[in-house]
């Protein structure tokens, strides 16, 4: 029986950079069924956390998402959005406790199918203060194209991903 959950690619930042992309994923369409991105992230924004954004195939349209969020020690809410990226998940930013990186996991089933692409995202940012974040996100890219590239970045264009952030992309095969 095949072993799956194979590491396809990784990016460990040695310096700050604007975004991380995994490309050429079309070559895995017959090898894997699903993709999973596991990230440990901090960005340079002067805040405790901020939105991250996810796009596919360099597309900036057709996205929508819904999140249930817990933050600030007492707030629980549900919010939704639509537009140029999936962006209701969060990453730790540079005003948070030093040496602290948040985590998000993005599960992408059937990434090469001809259906719209639904994703499931879990994210946490931690901070030894009153302001931290936990979220569960459902995202949708209303596009039937197979996913051939994945890009993640801080939603704020003025912030960069910080050195030391890591991104691991796994392929999962169902047989």
């Amino acid at each position, binding site marked *: 029986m095949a072993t799956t959950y194979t590491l396809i690619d990784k990016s460990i930042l040695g310096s700050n950079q604007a975004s991380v992309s995994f490309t050429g994923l079309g070559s895995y369409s017959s090898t894997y069924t699903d993709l999973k991105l596991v990230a440990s992230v901090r960005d340079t924004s002067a805040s405790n956390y901020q939105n991250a954004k996810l796009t596919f195939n360099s597309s900036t349209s057709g996205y929508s998402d819904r*999140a*249930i969020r817990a933050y600030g020690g007492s707030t629980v809410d549900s919010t939704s959005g639509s537009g140029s990226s999936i962006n209701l998940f969060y990453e730790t930013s540079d005003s948070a406790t030093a040496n602290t990186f948040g985590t998000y996991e993005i599960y992408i089933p*059937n990434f090469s*199918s001809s259906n*719209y692409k639904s994703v499931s995202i879990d994210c946490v940012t931690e901070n030894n203060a009153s302001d931290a974040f936990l979220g569960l996100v459902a995202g949708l890219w209303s596009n039937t194209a197979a996913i051939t590239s994945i890009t993640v970045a801080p939603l704020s264009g003025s912030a960069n991903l910080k050195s030391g952030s890591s991104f691991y992309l796994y392929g999962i095969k*169902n047989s």
Partner: protein
Amino acid sequence: MAATYEPIATTTLGSSANTVTFSSISGSYTDIVAVCSVKATTGSDEVLRSQVNGDTGSNYSYTYVQGVSAGAQSGRASNTSLILTQAGNLAIPEGASTFAPYVVQYMNYSNTNTFKTILSRGAGVNQAGASVSLWRSTSAITSIRFYIAAGNFDTGSTFTLYGIKAA
């Protein structure tokens, strides 16, 4: 190095069906993870449910949290007849091209000393959530059924079981 996260079985529906069952599940893993990518036939308006070992009795309970257009919600049920494999009452999408992912983890499924805990994450259209369920039995799980109470899973829905071994 031990092999882990092994695909055990997969079903892709070539026609609509109300139920998908995996039987004769090997007890050689530590956890079972089911990844489901599903949509329902038009008018089904139902939630993704699960039962194990053919148990249709009131031997389950669950707690959920969900984010929907109405806001953040939570709830629970005791002595119920199903595992809630997604959050709350989130209906499976019925759109033409939209399948929603659900990841369901049956923890220590073959342990014969403990009741069984099941964790679930659902990411439907405009809805997100998680749930925890309990099956009050010390029997090892040998079969898993996914179903909806009314209507059918649509053609193209996929259900895959993976085995995770701790060592």
